[in-house]
Structures are given as structure tokens and as C-alpha cells.
């Protein structure tokens, strides 16, 4: 039940709350910008009339500057002192947020405009919390608040020892919904749901510690997520046992003394038969496509277009597309369907042989051609297969059976199809759930093995894997490969800071549009190349590749490492301070990790140490 009403101007809202003695309040706002606007607007409309408190705030801020010089001249300075209100969100640096929190605790603020993120973490109470809607903003739009989120918010209402009662106030808003808030207030808290997942770091460390996959698997299967799976497996096993009993009872009732394997085998033959008939190609185009997919492969020459006169030597096939070299030496890429003819010989993809290959096809074209299939032929093949299955179905019953018995049992087998199908499916689901937690580790082990960090057969990590295990960093494999290929050795410290920032920053956050120096772009491009190699292998083994590099973060971090003033950096990037702070702080941590590889990669470690120091200076600590 939406109750859509225009939002009150923040000063009016605080005025009304003040009349009911409901201040101080935390007013939740959907975006950072709205928080900032509300605070500034309130301060310009409504001056805190209490001179004493205004002076107290001024004194407080002045002494805070001594500890945190970076907050001097903050754009919200006057807002706080004059208006007694502040905005608090992830766009501000921690030092600033800390001051707001302390001012609030000291009872020197009337209101804080905050995003929902303030609800998590630091203790930060008020008499009232105000909601202008029952929605939460996400990266990609709006969604309903959850019970736990609302509880985190209302958890801020009522200061222990300072309030007899706390209040949650629904204020007018375009997305206000009092019914929803009422429901959420009464809802039980959300359950804790496991997000357990495999990472390279965990795999390398556990394998090194336990020395074999079986034990690593055992550890992974102790996860909270697997507990849920294990419970479900028990349920599935029970269901499987029940369907087994059902099948056996029916067999007995029909007087068929057949083992379960015959029932299951019969079901599989019948279902394979029907699947085969469903898959039968229906049109000529379909037959042709399947044929092309089979015969077109790297090293073969094909004729393109209707006439098939333009010859191309295939070099690569991916999905429904191929790439190749034309007779004039230029490359071509096109859809599989455009191929009209395929020649049988497989030629070597070597420059010196290519010309000869084309000459060969020009000369003996007709005799080298692979004949196209006809729809009738294709059907004939399918019919053969179906025939074989029919024979097997026919002969699955023991030969010594009496004809009458045979008839009765065949009927029973047909009637048991559904039960047998369920019996088999349940087994597959059990197997799937068993592998769910381990499979992602297995896939990562394969990837690490292809890059030489792990010996898959010996179930051991290699010398290289040992330092990679120690590298506690996002995307360790990419960084490891960059280190191995010597990419870092060519970098000076500010470019190294830039590259590591590109890697650690949130993929979709914008850190301004500083111009990237050519040298930095080159370094990033080489890094992307390595990233592509890693992603290709990950993709091959079913591991989701890591997100893209963030170039705007690289530019900002390089500028900062190069000695820019904090205020200059903020001004030039036009990024939010809090975002810059977090990105640089994480970059600094990542650099420290590389600086720790003194033995395996001494040169990169040395530069990373310098870069780390350059990044980790006030206010980034």
C-alpha cells in the first residue's frame, strides 16, 4: 500500500520533529548526494539557535583539525557549526566520519543525514530514525528493504542510558509505504545464509597444509553451505530408497523376478530412443549445419559463398564462426553457414605451405571435395541407431522366460518407466549436490596447474605456488602471472601504484577522468594482455573470470603516488573523497603484499615497497 506524498524540505522535517521532542535524529536518504544536499539546505534555512552548542561544535572541530589536518576547510564545515546537522556516508573519508560520530555522541548535533550504509558497523545512535521510504537503492535500481536492514536502521533509535524510548518515524516520501514498514517491523530477522566459495588463495593454502585433495575437500565440505547440502542429500537418499522399494513391490506384484538393473537399463534405452528421435534433424539446413560443424576444422580449405569459388584456409573455429587466410594472404572471418564446400586434406598452417595448399586444391578440387550429406542419408543413420536400440530393448529380458511371462514383464517394465526415471534422476541430483562445494575448487586447481602453481597429479603446490599462497590480494593469479612475466620489473613506483589500483578498485566506480600518461597506458595494456591469458584458461575450466581493470583508478593512484596534495587530487579527479580513500588504502595494502615477495621477486618487491610508502601517506593510512 503505497502512500506517495511529496517529500518535506529537510529543514521543515527537522522543525516538525523538534516540536515533538524527537531530536536528535538520523534521517536515512537514498543517495550520498541527497544527504549532502539535505545537510547544506538545512543549515542555510535553519540556524541552530543554541549559541552554547554552536560554540561547543566550533571548539570541537578546531581541536579535531590538530589531529586530522586533512579536514581543514571541509566543504561541510559551516553546515555543521552553523546548522548543527551533518551528512554521513561512504563518500566521506574515515577521519571526517569519525568526527561526525563523536559530535553526535557528545550530543552536539540535531540530525544526521545518512545513507543506509551507516546502519552497519560503527555504533552511532540517536533518539529517532527517520525513513522517507521503504525502499533501498542498489547499484542497479530500487528494491524493498529487508527485515534485517530495517532492524539495523531502527537499531540506531534510542540511546542506551540517554533515551527512555526510541522512535522510528515514517516521513512523507514519494515511495513511502507505512504498511510495508509495519510489516517489516514485525517480521522475524532474516536467516544467515552461507556464501562459501572457492578461492585460489584458500585452495593453495589448504593444499600446502594437508598435502592432498581429499583432505582439502573434507575441509571444504565442513562449510555451512555444505551442511545444507548434506541435509538435502540425506533427504534425497531417502527418496531414492523409497522409489527403489516402490519398483521392487511392483515387480513382485507382477510376478517378475527381475533385478533393478534391468528396470533401470530398460528405462535408459527407452529414454535414449525417444531423445534420439527428438534430435533428428528436420530440415536440410539443420543437416548441413551439423555436417559443417563436424568437418570444418583448422587446416582444411573451404569454399566460401554459393559458388564456393573463394578459397579460405581455416585457422580457427569458435562457436558458429571461423577465421582463416584467403589466397591473397589476408585474413577473413565469417559464419559457418557461408561455407559451400569443404576439401578433405588437412594442411599445415605454416606460411611456406599455404601457397602450395591452395594450388593443390585448385588443381585437384573435385576429387578432394568432401561430399555433402543428404537429408535422407542423415535420417537413415538415425534410423539405424533407433533400430539398434529397439533390438536392445527387445532383448533386455532374460531369454529363458516363457513367452507369456515375457509379455507380462515387458508390460511391467513399461509401467515402471516413471519410477525408474525418478530413481536415476535422484541419483544424479545426489551426485551433483555432493560435488557442489568441491567442484569450484577442482576447477581452480586445474587452472593453477596450467600455470604451474600446482602439480595436479602429485596433488602438491609448486615452489611458485608457495609464494602465490602467501599473496593475500584480490585476483592473485593475475598478479602472479604479471610477476612471472616480469611485467612489474619494468615499472617505476608510481606506475606500479597505478596498475595495482586498476586491479583492486571496484570495477564500476568512477575515480574521475585524469589523463593517463602514455607509459601508464602501455603498462595497463600489457597487464590486460596477461589478464586475457588468465581469463581464457579460467573460462576453459569453468571458472568465472575476474572483472575488468579500472583505468580511472590507475590514473588517480599514479597521480597520488607521484606526490599530489590530497586536496589537489580531490579537486582534479572530482571523485568523492571516501571513494578515493578506500581505493588508495586498498592499493597500499596490495602493494605491501607484493613488497613481501622479497625472495621470489626481489625487484618487484623493492619497487612495490617504495610505491606502498608513496601511497600510504596522510590521510591514506
Amino acid at each position: 500500500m503505497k502512500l506517495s506524498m511529496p517529500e518535506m524540505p529537510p529543514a521543515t522535517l527537522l522543525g516538525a520533529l523538534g516540536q515533538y521532542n524527537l531530536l536528535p535524529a538520523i534521517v536515512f536518504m537514498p543517495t550520498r548526494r541527497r544527504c549532502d544536499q539535505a545537510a547544506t539546505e538545512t543549515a542555510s534555512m535553519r540556524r541552530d539557535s543554541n549559541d552554547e552548542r554552536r560554540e561547543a561544535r566550533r571548539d570541537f572541530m578546531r581541536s579535531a583539525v590538530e589531529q586530522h589536518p586533512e579536514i581543514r576547510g571541509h566543504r561541510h564545515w559551516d553546515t555543521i557549526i552553523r546548522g548543527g546537522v551533518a551528512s554521513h556516508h561512504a563518500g566521506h573519508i574515515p577521519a571526517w566520519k569519525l568526527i561526525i560520530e563523536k559530535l553526535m555522541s557528545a550530543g552536539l548535533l540535531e540530525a544526521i543525514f545518512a545513507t543506509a550504509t551507516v546502519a552497519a558497523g560503527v555504533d552511532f545512535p540517536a533518539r529517532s530514525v527517520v525513513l522517507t521510504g521503504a525502499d533501498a537503492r542498489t547499484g542497479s535500481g530500487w528494491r524493498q528493504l529487508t527485515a534485517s536492514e530495517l532492524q539495523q536502521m531502527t537499531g540506531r533509535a534510542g540511546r542506551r542510558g540517554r533515551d527512555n524510548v526510541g522512535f522510528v518515524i515514517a516521513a512523507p516520501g514519494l515511495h513511502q509505504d507505512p504498511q510495508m514498514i509495519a510489516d517489516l517491523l514485525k517480521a522475524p530477522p532474516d536467516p544467515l545464509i552461507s556464501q562459501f566459495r572457492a578461492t585460489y588463495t584458500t585452495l593453495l593454502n589448504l593444499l600446502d597444509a594437508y598435502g592432498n585433495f581429499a583432505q582439502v575437500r573434507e575441509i571444504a565440505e565442513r562449510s555451512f553451505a555444505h551442511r545444507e547440502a548434506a541435509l538435502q542429500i540425506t533427504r534425497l537418499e531417502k527418496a531414492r530408497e523409497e522409489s527403489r522399494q516402490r519398483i521392487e513391490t511392483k515387480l513382485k506384484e507382477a510376478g517378475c523376478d527381475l533385478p533393478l538393473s534391468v528396470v533401470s537399463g530398460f528405462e535408459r534405452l527407452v529414454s535414449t530412443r525417444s531423445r534420439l528421435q527428438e534430435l533428428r534433424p528436420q530440415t536440410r539446413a539443420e543437416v548441413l549445419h551439423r555436417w559443417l560443424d563436424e568437418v570444418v576444422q583448422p587446416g582444411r580449405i573451404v569454399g566460401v559463398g554459393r559458388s564456393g569459388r573463394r578459397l579460405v584456409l581455416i585457422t580457427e573455429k569458435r562457436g558458429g564462426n571461423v577465421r582463416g587466410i584467403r589466397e591473397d594472404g589476408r585474413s577473413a572471418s565469417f559464419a559457418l553457414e557461408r561455407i559451400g564446400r569443404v576439401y578433405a586434406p588437412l594442411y599445415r598452417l605454416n606460411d611456406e605451405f599455404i601457397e602450395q595448399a591452395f594450388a593443390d586444391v585448385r588443381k585437384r578440387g573435385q576429387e578432394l571435395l568432401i561430399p555433402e550429406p543428404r537429408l535422407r542419408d542423415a535420417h537413415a543413420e538415425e534410423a539405424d541407431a533407433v533400430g539398434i536400440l529397439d533390438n536392445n530393448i527387445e532383448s533386455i529380458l532374460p531369454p529363458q522366460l516363457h513367452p507369456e511371462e515375457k509379455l507380462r514383464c515387458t508390460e511391467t517394465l513399461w509401467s515402471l518407466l516413471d519410477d525408474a526415471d525418478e530413481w536415476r534422476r535422484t541419483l544424479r541430483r545426489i551426485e551433483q549436490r555432493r560435488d557442489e562445494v568441491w567442484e569450484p575448487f577442482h576447477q581452480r586447481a586445474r587452472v593453477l596447474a596450467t600455470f604451474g602453481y600446482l602439480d595436479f597429479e602429485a596433488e602438491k603446490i609448486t615452489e611458485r605456488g608457495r609464494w602465490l599462497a602467501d599473496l593475500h590480494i584480490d585476483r592473485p593469479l593475475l598478479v602472479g602471472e604479471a610477476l612471472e612475466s616480469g611485467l612489474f620489473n619494468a615499472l617505476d613506483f608510481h606506475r606500479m601504484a597505478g596498475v595495482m589500483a586498476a586491479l583492486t578498485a571496484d570495477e564500476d566506480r568512477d575515480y574521475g577522468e585524469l589523463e593517463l600518461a602514455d607509459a601508464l597506458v602501455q603498462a595497463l595494456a600489457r597487464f590486460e594482455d596477461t589478464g586475457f591469458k588468465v581469463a581464457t584458461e579460467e573460462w576453459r575450466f569453468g571458472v568465472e573470470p575476474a572483472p575488468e581493470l579500472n583505468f580511472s583508478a590507475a590514473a588517480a593512484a599514479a597521480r597520488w603516488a607521484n606526490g599530489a596534495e590530497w586536496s589537489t587530487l580531490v579537486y582534479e579527479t572530482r571523485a568523492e573523497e571516501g571513494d578515493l580513500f578506500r581505493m588508495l588504502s586498498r592499493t597500499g595494502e596490495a602493494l605491501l603484499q607484493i613488497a613481501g615477495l622479497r625472495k621470489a621477486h626481489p625487484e618487484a618487491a623493492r619497487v612495490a615497497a617504495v610505491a606502498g610508502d608513496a601511497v600510504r601517506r596522510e590521510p591514506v593510512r
Partner: protein
Amino acid sequence: MRRSRDRTVDKRRRSRDKNRSQRSEHGLEHSRHNSTNPTAARQFGPPQSRQVKQLLEGIGTPGAQTFKPDPFQLEALAALEFEDVLVTAPTGSGKTWIAREEIRRLLDAGRRAWYTTPLKALTNSKYQEFTEEFGSDRVGILTGDRKDNSDAPLLVGTTEIYRNQLFDSLRGGSDVNADLVVLDEAHYLADEDRGHVWEEAIILTPPRIRLLLLSATIGNANEFAAWIEEVRGVRCGVVTRPGARPVPLRAAMLLPDKRLLPLLTESGKLNPELARMGQQAGEERRGPSRGHRRRY
């Protein structure tokens, strides 16, 4: 079998709250208050209806009280002597107090503790809090970019760093030298990106080390504790703050004309006046006679 701790505590609380107000089990107060609180009679702002008076009754600051631990805090402390403990209670209800007292007891006995938090900012503020409490020589801090006094008997750090220490000790490095590990904000286990670190920390912490998990209120605390018990082979008790909130909560709706209405009725339903307004608004939106779409 898990003991039911809540019952006795509930009884004690009930007697204490008898003169305060009616409270539902969610800690949410509905609009009936028999308060005898002296500050309740103070009148603020615009003329108030009886309804609003009731809503605002008792608002204000309590008189100075000497600190007395809540029963659930004492209960958690007592349980820690014998088993791992999962404490679930909302922010600001005194979970940290439990950890602090247990740490004090251990430090005084010459033993050691690790305190983990999910955030660097939180780690820094806990570090400050503990150095003030126990003296800077007894507290160390470990984060991704800060390492001070790392041999101290009490270490404060991010959960990642603690997990990494567990990895190191499993791989033959130095042992994790602690008698107690506190996982603050343990509900981070459900964090999409980092939650696995909490699971790894719980699974890999040697059973000889006592675990104290501090979590926001969650819907499946018993299940969570049962899992911890299974993977560690150590009993894990659940201590939940009864009545959910340290300070009672009331809900209200502020209207554009600055009237204040209770959000809920005595029985916890939506205030019928608000329900009526919502219905009217809905009908207006659907109204057929309007020639133009109303803009919001």
C-alpha cells in the same frame, strides 16, 4: 540438547519492565502506555491529541543509573567457561561488554586473546578502546597495512588477517597463540564477497581455542550454532537478548501537515487512519475521470 536460557532471563526482565509499558516480543511498543515516568507529563510543541500524547509518553532522558550488566550478558560470560558461545543481539545492546569482561579475565590470568572485526575502521576503534581499558602494552593491532605490538597478549585485527594466520600455522609456520577468539559482527558470514573468510576462520580455529561470536539478530541462530558444534566438535551455546532491544522502540508516521500518528494499533496492526489514507490514494491513482496522469 541445548539448554533454554531465555526463560529465566525473561522472567527477570518482565518484573523489571512491569511499570514501563506493554511490549511485544519484537521489542516494539504499541500505543498503550501506563507510564508513571515523571518526565512523561512534559508538553512539547503543538496541541496534541490523546493518541499523540500516548505515543510520546515517557520520551526523554532517564535519570543517572549505575551500570548493571544485563542478565544475558552475565549468562554469556558464565557459558564461556564451558563452551563456545554465539551471542545474538542488536547493535548497541552490550555485546562488546561480554567480550571485554572475558578478555579482562583472561589477561589477568596471563592468557591471550584475538579480537576480529570486519572493518578497518572498527578495528581501529576497538584498538583504541582496548588500549584505554587494558593499557597499550597489552594490546596489539593487525590490519592489511598496520602492524603494532603484534606479540601483545590481546590482538585486534581484521578477520582476514586472523584467517591468514590460521593458514600460516597450518602450513607449518608459527601457531596461533590465543585462548579465546572473538568474532565481532559474525553475521558477516553472509557477506557475498567476504563471507567465506568467516567460515574458514570458524572451521580452521583449533578446538582448544574458545570461540565467542557476536552477531546481529539472525533468524537461524540455533542452526548456525549447531553447525559450529559439528565442525569444531565443541559445544556451542546460543545467548539471545530477550525482548530484542535495549531501549524500547515506537513507530510513528509524520504527515505533510506535521501531524504525528502512531504507525500501529494496540494489536500491532497498521493504524486504520493510515490504512484509509493509503486506500484513498490508491483509488485516486486509479480514478477513471481524470483527464491527465497525475505526476509524482
